[in-house]
């Protein structure tokens, strides 16, 4: 019987060595270890053995069973690992095929840059004020120290509203929001106001009868021209990086005194002079100044107690500079092939 057991173990292991499929392995397991398996058949004959032989053979039989079981299990693990490796290999995909998109839209480039500027000013404590696009002469001109017959009105190419005797008009500048804010808010005031403005300019690559400005207004006790410079420098450094330089040039606006135009070092040459900046090294960016005392007084703010600064920048120019867009018309044509680039 001992020989029989030993033979079974040898045979089982021999057969196991030839086994290469999981199914065959399971059949083998049943053949040797199952209830009707060969080992069981031998063990059924245990009763015929003597009392001395029984524990020896029993022990041996258990060992044979354990050995076969272990061999089968380890073979099974190896076969499973092989099968999985094969399957994983088979599942290879082309990882350069494009991804599957959920639909996602795009912000208009005007919105993108406007949002950026809004955020910078919010960080500096500026609130966002809105004002009417169709406004009146008082808010757009007169209260801003541009009385009737002021020569500077010529430069504004105003659209007037029919039937209002030229009292109502499309605002030519967001500066009108300054007046609306000062009518409804006590100082300290710290606002920006982005919005649409309108001038009677025919459409071409750099002109549009509708464009966007961002107005800024600060009124408080002790506001200086240094504050104006510091604020605008902060804005431009945040927008264009720490290397950009600003240049302040005296200018004239009826609603500020002193007034200035602000140029930024050329994005292309950094101030050396190139074809983009017409050899100037600088590009005109915005107009600014200290709020004219008459404007404060017109709005009922004591100019001896309060001072302030204001500025207005053209959004289109900043958008075009930022994205190298050379034709303003693209912004209002809204071709999806243009919009999808932002």
């Amino acid at each position, binding site marked *: 019987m001992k020989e029989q057991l030993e033979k079974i173990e040898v045979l089982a292991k021999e057969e196991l060595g030839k086994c290469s499929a999981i199914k065959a392995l399971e059949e083998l397991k049943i053949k040797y270890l199952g209830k009707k398996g060969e080992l069981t058949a031998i063990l059924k004959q245990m009763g015929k053995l003597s009392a001395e032989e029984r524990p020896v053979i029993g022990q041996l039989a258990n060992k044979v069973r354990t050995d076969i079981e272990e061999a089968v299990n380890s073979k099974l693990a190896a076969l499973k690992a092989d099968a999985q490796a094969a399957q994983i290999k088979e599942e290879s995909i082309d990882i350069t095929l494009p991804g599957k998109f959920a*639909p996602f*839209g*795009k912000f208009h480039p005007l919105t993108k840059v406007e949002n950026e500027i809004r955020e910078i000013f*919010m960080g500096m*404590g500026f*609130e*966002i004020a809105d004002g009417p*696009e*169709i406004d009146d002469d008082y*808010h757009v001109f007169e209260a801003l120290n541009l009385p009737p*017959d*002021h*020569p500077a009105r*010529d*430069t504004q190419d105003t*659209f*007037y*509203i*029919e*039937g209002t005797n*030229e009292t*109502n008009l*499309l605002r030519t500048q967001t500066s009108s929001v300054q007046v609306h804010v*000062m*009518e409804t*808010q*006590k*100082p300290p005031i*710290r606002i920006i106001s982005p919005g*649409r403005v309108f001038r009677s300019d*025919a*459409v071409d690559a750099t002109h549009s*009868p*509708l464009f966007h400005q961002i107005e800024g207004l600060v009124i408080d006790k002790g506001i*200086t*021209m*240094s*504050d104006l*410079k*510091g604020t605008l*420098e902060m804005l431009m450094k945040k927008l264009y990086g720490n290397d950009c330089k600003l240049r*302040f*040039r*005296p200018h*004239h606006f*009826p609603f500020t*005194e*002193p007034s*200035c135009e602000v140029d930024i070092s050329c994005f292309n040459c950094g101030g050396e002079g190139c074809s983009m900046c017409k050899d100037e090294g600088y590009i005109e960016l915005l107009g600014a100044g*200290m709020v004219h*005392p*008459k404007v404060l007084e017109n709005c*009922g*703010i004591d100019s001896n107690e309060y*001072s302030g600064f204001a500025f207005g920048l053209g959004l289109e120019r900043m958008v075009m500079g930022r994205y190298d867009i050379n034709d303003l018309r693209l912004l*209002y044509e*809204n*071709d999806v*092939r243009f919009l*999808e680039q932002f």
Partner: protein
Amino acid sequence: MNLSMKWLNDYVKADMSIKDYCHALTMSGSKVESYEVEGSSISNVVVGKILSKGQHENADALFVCQVDIGADAPIQIVTNAKNVKEGDLVPVALDGAVLPEGKIKKCKMRGVESFGMFCGLDTLGLTAHDFPYADPEGVFVIEEECTLGQDIKSAIGLDDTSVEFEITSNRPDCLSVIGLARETAATYNLPLNVKAPEFKGVDGDINSMLKVDIHNTEKCQRYCAGIVKNVKIGPSPRWMRERLRASGVRPINNFVDITNYVMLEYGQPMHAFDLRYVEGAHINVRNAVNGEKIMTLDGVERELTDDMLVIADDKKPVAVAGIMGGEYSGIMDDTTTVVFESAYFEPTQVRRTSKALRLKSDASARYEKGVDRLISMTCLKRAFELVEELGAGEVINTVIDCDYTDKTPAEVEFNAEWINSFLGTDISESDMINYLGRLGFKVENGKVIAPSFRIDIECKADIAEEVARIYGYNNIPSTDFRGVAKAEFTEVQKFVRTLRNTAVSLGGYEIATYSFVSPKYFDKIKLPADSRLRNVVKIQNPLGEDTSVMRTSTIPSMLDVLSFNYNNRNEKACLFEIAKEYLPVAEKRNYQGDDALLVNSGKPRHEYDYQLPDEPQRITIGMYGGNCDFYTIKGMVEQLLDEMKIYDVEYIRATDSDAFDEKTAMHPYRSAVIMKDGTALGIIGEVHPDVQETYEIGTKTYVAKLNVPELMACAEDKITYSPLPKFPATTRDLSLIVDDEVPVAAIEKAIKGAVGKILEKVTLFDVYKGQQIESGKKSVSYSISMRSHDGTLTDEQADSAMKKALKALAAIGAELRA
């Protein structure tokens, strides 16, 4: 204003480089647009003398000349010029010369070598106005003093530099050479040399020759006049012509040139009349009579009104004051006696008249901004000084001066401390006084006294600006912002921000369109004749019809962009815009409570209300292509509403609602108005086939418009968490047969009403019409999920709920599908 640098150097020694000059003046406030070095497009052209001129052997029309160009040997030039002869001095473009129109190279002409070319005026970029003696058609025969071989530019005075300034409207004093010389001197801290003009004159009593009366001393505050007799009309000398040319003014004759010269030099417009045509030898400065007519120098007859000012003789107007002379009173070739006028006209008067007549001139451009009130007599004298210098006639040594000007100078408090605190600087008082002095201001007894040419000085901020610009804006320190920052978006701004972000995350491309549109859109979207959307804000002076009315609907703008994209062969588009409509209001707004007064001035707000239109914001969505249908855009709108926390809206047929007149732009059976508690929030639908065709879009197109204020009003303002369920849900499926026209919303409403509180969700999973279904009916299938928070639902509870549901469904004609 174009400035001749040669002229400038009469008054200030400006010998710095031109680049340095332009930069420095720009930075002190006189912005240089550009500069032009005269003759920079000409090189290698010299003065030559024609030694001999002979016939070309092979061509009748050509001549062969030997020309002395100051070199060792003469050069040979072939020309077709008939107006030159032996001994003439001519400009010779040598081999390799550059001219405005191109390069010159030696060549063979009909077999004879030519080593250059003779130049005419036009080849040098000149006209007969520059050299009146020269033949404008032929070669320029030079009559100037010059040497052989001399560069042509210095020989004929083409060596000036002209600087173009952009002068702002507050500084008319800088529309003059002396004004800019003053700015130059102040910028560089150089001495300014302006001498008072003097003339000798001949004895004569002007009062016996001419009488002047000002009838409106408010509009004409000063009128100076003088007379030149025995005038010799002719071209002015070369130096004057050169300076006029560099200033962009065409030389005419000595008298006209003198008036222009003085205007350019001092900024004071001058006028010269022929005394013969001043009837009664009487000048009246008066208001025009309504309907009075004058033919101005530009050859146009103009009808005047009584608010305009004219210079008139006893019978007729001879000039529109400060703007332009009459055609028949100007200087002619046979003029013998000239009257010079130097006057001060009130700016608004000139400006209004100029605007009304649509007539502008160099004179009106200066008068309407404001010339120096006190300079009229100086300029008259300067004109006479020039008349004598040019030998153009005899000046009568007495003059007329009708003077009603207020000579009180503008005075402003001088407070160095305040200026520093306003600018954020630390400039010493003595430096400030120095800067102001250079600009012509005096500081006395704590006051700054403005010179009479500075019409823009009114307040201490003006003085701060003068100090700042000479000190240098870029020398002012920059300070970081101080103070407490407390800013946040308003509720509207937050709402719009979320709306925009959501529209983008749902696949919308944001667009930007014009606020003004063509009135043709009314018909393009088939609005009825009495639609309120046809009541628009119109622009009085539009660029064209396409941009002539403020839109009352954003939908046509969206259709335009969809059409543009479709016609650019973009396969699909899903667009949105958040922008305004402009709706006229019937009357002024009613301000009450805290709103009734302006906060800073305390004035009644009502007085500052000019009845402006409403400008409500809209979100407009449009799409075509990409297999989209009504339910695609509806899905986008539903998700948008859900994200904006607007729940339980109802979709009713657009044809059953009067809320949106744009329903005519939509397919009547594929459009809806979105309702919430009786308020119309928006309209959505497929574009009507007619409208689609009008807009030239060749595929099904969908649009939606939602009113932002209404959306905001019904948006929930907070989110409340509902506890996660503890007990399982029970699900029942229902397949129903119902009349085709019964909307699924009605079925869902019935189910919801019947099942009640335990209803968790009703999900439509199939709609079927076809063979197995009786025609005119449809099959709809729902999965109904029920759940209780108190315990697991029993089958009995679920079945009983279903029974109630079926009963309610039966009431609307829906039956279980067999």
